[in-house]
């Protein structure tokens, strides 16, 4: 699979990580998404801001219900609206605010400049079309390729993600592939149009560890070859440690900590991050007598947040935590934490 990518066009990208580290490809500012339900609005995403630099891999970590998937779906308006409604914020990509685009313009961005990989490779591939058709579809729609060109490119893509005898497998249907192979097909589809940004929503969660290791290797390899920026959503702190450059930790629909990957693991500055890292069982040395657990449950996001959402479970909570929701405080150059304990004026 190494040899086939030499044909590819974006050679500039290969030098990018070092050359233009500061170039921002995607900037999200103050994103707010709510779901209207019979019992009132659920505030799934609360004032989320982050930026994505060219060539970097941003890990988004959080538990189920923390709003990580909804945030990424909101970027491309992939949510059913209603009940979902994006009530505020800007998503700047290529000099345009994606939230202001019409459906036709959005369609050009989806699968074109921004690729998406979903969690479950079985439900995100269409069972009644061949894999070849599904890879060629974005090529023909976005890049206006003819059948033969699209076919050649599809084979090239399948080889790129490590599917053996790619030419023969184009006419196979999704059910003829194993879970890991299907996820490779999903990656191939997402990469089809040379996206500038790839959003991967828990792409390895449904896979076995040995297959997960294969997919992670492929992603590392592809990043070096293609140099696109990646947003990687996961709940697995181990996976993030291995591949991310920067990490945003989400809780209660907001980013609670934002840091370079080394800083985050060496010196986590939000109590939730600290607690999350402590709950993991040790993988070497003596086993701990008892696992550290975070008491309580994830917050209910009905209504506006008026206090820190983590306060009820936090062992370090102070009075202030119950009175107001902390903003993201800057701790040092690249690390931010939404915790009153880190308030420079506090």
């Amino acid at each position, binding site marked *: 699979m190494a040899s086939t990518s030499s044909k590819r066009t974006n050679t500039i990208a290969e030098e990018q990580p070092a050359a233009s580290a500061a170039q921002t490809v995607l900037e999200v500012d103050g994103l707010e998404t709510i779901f209207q339900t019979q019992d009132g609005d659920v505030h799934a995403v609360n004032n989320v801001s982050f930026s994505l630099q060219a060539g970097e891999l941003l890990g988004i970590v959080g538990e189920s219900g923390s709003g990580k998937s909804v945030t990424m779906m909101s970027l491309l308006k992939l949510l059913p609206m209603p009940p979902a409604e994006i009530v505020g914020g800007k998503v700047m990509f290529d000099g345009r605010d994606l939230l202001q685009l019409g459906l036709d313009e959005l369609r050009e961005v989806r699968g074109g400049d921004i690729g998406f990989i979903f969690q479950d490779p079985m439900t995100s591939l269409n069972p009644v079309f061949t894999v070849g058709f599904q890879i060629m579809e974005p090529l023909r729609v976005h890049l206006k390729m003819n059948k033969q060109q699209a076919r050649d490119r599809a084979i090239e893509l399948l080889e790129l993600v490590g599917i053996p005898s790619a030419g023969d497998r184009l006419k196979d249907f999704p059910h003829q592939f194993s879970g890991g192979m299907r996820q490779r097909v999903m990656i191939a589809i997402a990469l089809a149009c040379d996206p500038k940004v790839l959003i991967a929503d828990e792409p390895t969660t449904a896979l076995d560890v040995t297959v997960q*290791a294969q997919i992670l290797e492929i992603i590392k390899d592809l990043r070096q070859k293609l140099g696109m920026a990646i947003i990687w959503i996961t709940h697995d702190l*181990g996976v993030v440690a291995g591949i991310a450059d920067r990490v945003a930790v989400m809780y209660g629909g907001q980013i609670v900590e934002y840091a370079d990957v080394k800083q985050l693991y060496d010196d986590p500055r939000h109590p939730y991050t600290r607690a999350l890292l402590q709950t993991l069982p040790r993988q070497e040395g003596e086993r701990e007598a008892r696992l550290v*657990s975070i008491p309580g449950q994830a917050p209910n996001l009905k209504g506006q947040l008026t206090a820190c959402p983590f306060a009820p479970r936090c062992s370090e909570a102070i009075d202030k935590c119950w009175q107001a929701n902390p903003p993201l405080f800057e701790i040092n150059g690249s690390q931010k934490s939404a915790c009153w304990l880190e308030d420079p004026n506090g």
Partner: protein
Amino acid sequence: MAEAETATNSAAPGETLVNVSNLKMHFPIYKGLFRKKVGDVKAVDGLSFEIKRGETLGLVGESGCGKSTTGRAVLRLYELTDGVISFEGEDIAQLSNEELRARRPHMQMIFQDPQACLNPRMTVGAIIAEPLVEHRQMTSEERKERVKELLNSVGMNPDFVNRYPHEFSGGQRQRIGIARALALDPDFIVCDEPIAALDVSIQAQVVNLLEDLQKERGLTYLFISHDLSMVRHIADRVAVMYLGKIMELAPREALFKDPKHPYTQALLSAVPVANPEVESQRERVILKGDVPSPSNPPAGCVFCTRCPVAEEKCFSEAPQWRELQPDQFVACHLAK
């Protein structure tokens, strides 16, 4: 390990509670107009292991390796194709349905999906009381008391008896499932991926609960999981399964520190570590390809198609199950 030292005293913890030998569980494949039998899915193919009283045996492997089938077969939730399962010295594979029913209270199960294993139309109280109604002669007052006691022991508010499963979160539902399994004071519980559907912060709560209950009640667990780091925490001994067979069985420390089987080595090296420094320097054994179909397993060693060190012999001859070191068993020609 503690169990090994006390093993001489047969009444103390350390006696064998469950002894499985040559367990086979094949599911027939039918095809064509006349539903002719064309083959078997060999989900579990010749397992032998024992579980001592009071210990936790971890059973790990990837999806489709037969670990859940093993868990269910050990409780005889399936009719076995072949093999002996002795529970407290009695072969439960041969029991009649009635005799089996009398044994059921001693062996229980906790399921993976806490949503699917609780009847949505029953209240929590009714769910937990159901085994008591079936197996114990109790007045309804006694039952109510017992249900409250059980809810208490799994860390839930006893006032919740009249609520329905959908009113609870995943972690709480798993606790209800555990309370139900405990209702009849079992000796042995098969935990089939009890934490796989839960969030990281909730997993630790449930694992701690399982450990506390084990200490209080002297329970014996067969803990089935694909999460190796959690198994490392909870299990005393660990069995690694691949394609219906056990590849390696060893005490926890030995298995994680010095795995002997190439599959165990690959599996352990694939587990991500939550430490960027370690991750950036790790050498991974990346297995090629996918698990073969259990209806047509490879000749010789079942792992030979993906094994990084396989030799000619591995493709023709099935490896013997042998004790490499005291208590450390492995099925591999090459392990030393």
